């Protein structure tokens, strides 16, 4: 058991040094989204509010809207990384064979990579949060809100990972899985409330989404961070359900893909 945990720890460390090897890249990935948020979303929404006849759109005044968008930004940094990108490359370039020999399985290796990425993203999102507070976009929320929000978002990150893992596994059949990832992220950004808060959508749509994982990927945690009342039990149970579903699907796909892989002797 102990040696098993050591393996995990070592793998996490290796992926960590991979992520931080290129300093400036890392810096750009931290600062990039914040700057873009600042330039585009801030400017865009302020001109929208200037052009609007009412100062309140569906219950959001300008500063509410800004708060909402800053939190969705921090949530996406924390919970929607791109850790599963190497996975499809491994499959496509036939590097799986080496995992078949290691006494450490493919999914374990990539999950360890994900864990290390999450640790990194906790730093990144905290820095972003501090920047946002520093520039006066938001106020620092209470500790209990921070803890509830971060833990929910990290949990959501697990769902995101199982879904990314799913698209990565499609590399057994598809040459380029990034297309699937882009498609998925477009869908998610709309349905999760990353682009517009869900209140702006028609009610039937919001109702239909309630048991899907989408609202819990941006809208729901943003509400937690903004200190609003949410049904945490519902959020956790819906996500748990979907994590289980995707984990099972991934398991099946992996089995099927492996049969294909070994048969073709790629």
């Amino acid at each position, binding site marked *: 058991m102990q040696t098993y945990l050591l393996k995990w720890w070592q793998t996490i*460390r290796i992926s*960590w040094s991979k992520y*931080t090897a290129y300093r400036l890249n890392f810096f750009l990935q931290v600062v990039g989204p914040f700057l873009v948020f600042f330039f585009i979303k801030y400017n865009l929404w302020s001109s929208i509010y200037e052009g609007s006849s009412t100062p309140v759109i569906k219950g959001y005044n300008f500063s509410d809207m800004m708060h909402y968008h800053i939190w969705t930004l921090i949530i996406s940094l924390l919970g929607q990384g791109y850790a599963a990108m190497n996975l499809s490359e491994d499959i496509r370039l036939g590097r799986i064979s080496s995992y078949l020999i290691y006494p450490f399985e493919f999914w374990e290796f990539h999950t360890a990579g994900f864990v290390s990425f999450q640790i990194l993203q906790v730093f990144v999102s905290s820095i972003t949060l501090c920047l946002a507070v520093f520039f006066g976009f938001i106020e620092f929320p209470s500790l209990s809100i921070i803890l509830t929000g971060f833990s929910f978002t990290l949990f959501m990150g697990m769902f995101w990972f199982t879904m990314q893992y799913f698209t990565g596994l499609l590399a057994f059949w598809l040459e380029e899985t990034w297309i699937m990832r882009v498609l998925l992220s477009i869908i998610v950004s709309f349905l999760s409330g990353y682009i517009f808060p869900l209140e702006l959508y028609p009610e039937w749509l919001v109702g239909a989404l309630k048991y899907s994982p989408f609202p819990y990927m941006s809208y729901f945690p943003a509400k937690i961070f903004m200190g609003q009342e949410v049904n945490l039990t519902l959020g956790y149970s819906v996500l748990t359900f979907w994590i289980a579903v995707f984990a099972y699907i991934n398991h099946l796909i992996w089995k099927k893909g492996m049969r294909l892989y070994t048969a073709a002797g790629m």
Partner: protein
Amino acid sequence: MSQKVIEVINLTKQFKSYKKKPGLKGSLQSFFNRKYSIKKAVHGFNLEINKGEIIGLLGPNGAGKTTLMKMFTGIIVPTSGELTINGHSPWERKKEFKKKIALVMGQKSQLWWDIPAMDSFLLLQKFYELSNQEFKQRLDYMSELLGVVDLLHVHVRKLSLGERMKMELMASLLHNPDVIFLDEPTIGLDLVAQENIRAFILDFHKKNGTTIIITSHYMADVQALCKRLVLIFDGTKAYDGPLEKFENILGNEKTVSFTFSEEIPCCGYLDEFHGEWNEGRTSVDIRVPEENLREVGKKVLDLHPVIEFNTEKMPIERVMKTLMTNPEVLRAQRDHANLPA
């Protein structure tokens, strides 16, 4: 009248790199406070090569061979020193220069993975502005010589390593370059493929009088192709001269092995040579000065029940091995024998 194709004077290349301690802490440390160090990949290198020569550039891993090749072809820019290839400074990357050289790297591929080699060749035809006639003629000549005529329309990813290497060679030589740089062209190939490629290079050289610089860790390549060797250690030139002289760098003794049908008891004539015996004293390797070879051989054959004997095929391999483990031998040798350096 020989014409100089390559002239190198005091060439130096430095690289900057940083070191990282292992683990999380090391990563964090190097993230914030990076210590750079300067590594001299090549320094004070001099060389002259005439038209039509085939030169073997030898040295252990990391000695600077590939760095030299990349400077010769203009891929990287020297830190200091002078370098002229075919009358050009490679780093100016002139079109006329590029049309006259070729670089083949055994460890990298320039062919497009997901399409047949022929498609890549057609693109190269356009790159080098070759007429259809030239193109077809060279393609036919090379693909026949290498035995890959049937593979031209197969997707590159479906080719074996040996087949792919042959395609790489063709891709690099289609434009009939004056100077060819071959960086480990036979690495990882089976013996037959290695031989095919050597034969091809020799044929190409004979036909076109091309100047060729080749690096390899396989001494068979060097033995078969090169008349002149340049040895590089730690970025500087350690030897430059004919192959035969290199073979004798550690003295002119030859290694001779004998195998006997029965155990040879200690201590007879053979033991005078302080040879290396096997466990049961049924075979021995001895070192014999070249001029005594016939005499000693005759005597051993007369004295003992020899069932097999041979002299070493590739003394160069033994010399390389000795030098790589013991580079200072070379310096001592050079001082004594006044070898060209």
